[in-house]
């Protein structure tokens, strides 16, 4: 569609889903006030959840979900071969997300518990980057559509996208949300990458770290602070491990 007589360049985009709830790709059709312009700024050639189009000719592959079965690995590799740019969408694709919580259990035992004597094929859930190169990661559970739009604007302008460097605490200050830690809640906002507009603290829930660590997050000081405020190691540990974003920082 022309605007001011100029035909814009619309990147050809395909959306693919693996192990997950598909909530992140659903965000692509949310934020209705700008949904029309958003859909006009890209050309969706394939998006199984929303379209019957089966295009194979895409430049950008958006991948939603973790990887947890052999056929998913194969499908992901084929997508990587075709795509110029591969985007990991959401915490499952970026870090393994909640899908990887099952990795803490014996999978054969888990299979017996859920499927009895008819076990189904499964393997440890892992992030997309463990199998193929990822060009851009947009974490979040779910992703912020506002951030997806920012990425698309950068692509349209040909300007490299730079994810936020500040922590979620800054989002809270911008929204005048009082500190959850001060109100006695465990909150990972001080060490989590900001830019989400802090929906959780604003809704009365401490940050769970779905966007992974902010650059230069001081995990050591945060742990000392959380312990000082009386939070048990088990609770802190479970929180840090919930979406998988802090794994590398914890292991370092």
């Amino acid at each position, binding site marked *: 569609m022309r605007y001011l007589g100029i035909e814009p360049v619309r990147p050809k985009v395909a959306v693919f889903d693996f192990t997950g709830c598909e909530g992140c790709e659903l965000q692509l059709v*949310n934020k209705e006030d700008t949904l029309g312009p958003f859909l006009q700024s890209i050309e969706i050639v394939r998006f199984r959840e929303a379209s019957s189009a089966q295009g194979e000719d895409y430049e950008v592959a958006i991948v939603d979900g973790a990887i947890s079965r052999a056929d998913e690995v194969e499908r992901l590799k084929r997508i990587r071969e075709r795509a110029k740019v591969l985007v990991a969408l959401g915490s499952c694709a970026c870090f393994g997300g909640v899908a990887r919580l099952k990795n803490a259990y014996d999978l054969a035992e888990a299979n017996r518990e*859920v499927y009895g004597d008819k076990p189904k094929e499964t393997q440890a859930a892992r992030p997309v980057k463990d199998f193929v190169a990822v060009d851009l990661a947009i974490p979040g559970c779910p992703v912020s559509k506002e951030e997806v739009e920012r990425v698309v604007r950068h692509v349209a302008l040909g300007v490299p996208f730079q994810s936020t460097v500040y922590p979620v605490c800054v989002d809270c200050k911008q929204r005048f949300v009082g500190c959850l830690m001060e109100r006695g809640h465990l909150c990972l906002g001080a060490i989590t990458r900001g830019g989400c507009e802090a929906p959780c603290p604003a809704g*009365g829930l401490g940050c769970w770290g779905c966007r992974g660590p902010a650059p230069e997050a001081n995990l050591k000081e945060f742990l000392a602070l959380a312990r000082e405020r009386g939070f048990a190691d088990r609770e802190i540990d479970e929180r840090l491990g919930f979406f998988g974003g802090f794994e590398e920082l914890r292991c370092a």
Partner: protein
Amino acid sequence: MRVSLDVDVRPLTRVEGHGNIKIRVHDGVVQEARWDVVETPRFFEVMLKGKHHSTAGILSARICGICSIGHCLASVRATEAAFKVEVPPLARQLRKLAKHGETLQSHLLHVLFLAAPDFLGLESAIPLVELKPELFALAARLKGVGNTLCEVVAGRTTHPVSIAVGGMARRPDKRSLRSLRGELEGGLNDLRAVVELVRGFEIPAFARETEFVSLKGEDNYPWIGGTLLSSDGVEMPESDYLKMTNEYVTEEGTSKWCRLSRASFAVGALARFNNNWRLLHPEALRVAAELGLRAPCHNPFMNNAAQVVEVVHVTHESIALLDEVLDAPAEAPLQAEFEPRAGEGVGAVEVPRGILYHHYAYGGDGRIERANCVIPTTQNNANIQLDLQRLAVEQARSGTTDAALERLASMLVRSYDPCISCSVH
């Protein structure tokens, strides 16, 4: 003419999750007609083990990207039943509002964005941005009101943040609630156009008698908790959900199947309508009549119409609920005090696609020892399968083409609005 047909849809599009349809007809005789769920399993029931009660709702919301509020509500309800917690009235009203927001966004997503393209001859709703900008703007605006309702009340539309064991974590500010009320009233106008649109849909003439399962409404159309009811006359308390669902594992699929009085039953908007239509808002009943929906309706394609009827009902009920919440005294409690205790609890919630159950057993430490979740689409799987078989037989008899059968079979499964990854939790 005796036809031979081969339909192989893998995977079905414009639904949540991965499912395949396979139909083969040789010389007028159906060789196979199958509905296969191939979604990767996630093992949420195992992941929930050992989790603290304050984590259960947050984790189980992640079972589904569309009905996460419903999962969170079923989860906290199961925990509250186990801990014997009585949720304060204001929190109950807010939860119902969040539930209604989810019903609105989910039903409108399905009817206008996923199902409508079949009736408009399009691959998706995306071309409508340019082909029918007014219709697209209206559809987006209406779905947006549902999402705003979720955001204002539950903090977020996908994976809510304000629903906590014992009540709600936050009371929405009055200004947002008043503005929402206005948006919902505006929505009623837009809904007239949706009813007109759906009235023009050519709903395939197909029916197969089946059993419908839903919550039983007492004074209101039912959404959260209560007695379980089937159209074959089975009635059970919420806690007996296992006897109402009878889940079993099949050789091929990663989603389980269910049965009750017959080989299959159906849940969802059509089941709720068939079992509880008398409790609908008069305006919703008028819309049902306009759309030719009359109970008992055994045409699964009419689930689309039942969703529109529920959207009208839920919009009216939300406006009334907003007034109650706005009038609630400032000091009205939002959260009940409680102590975790060992015990079991079941939470049943009518989510957009049908009745959802969460069942937890807690140890004395407030952590889950066992968890079970029964998903609406799991309950619909056998019914979808039997519908597909019937459809294949009828189509084979009347003579058709691969393309026409593929379209019709896809529309049939799509009309259930399956939430497949949810069913393979």
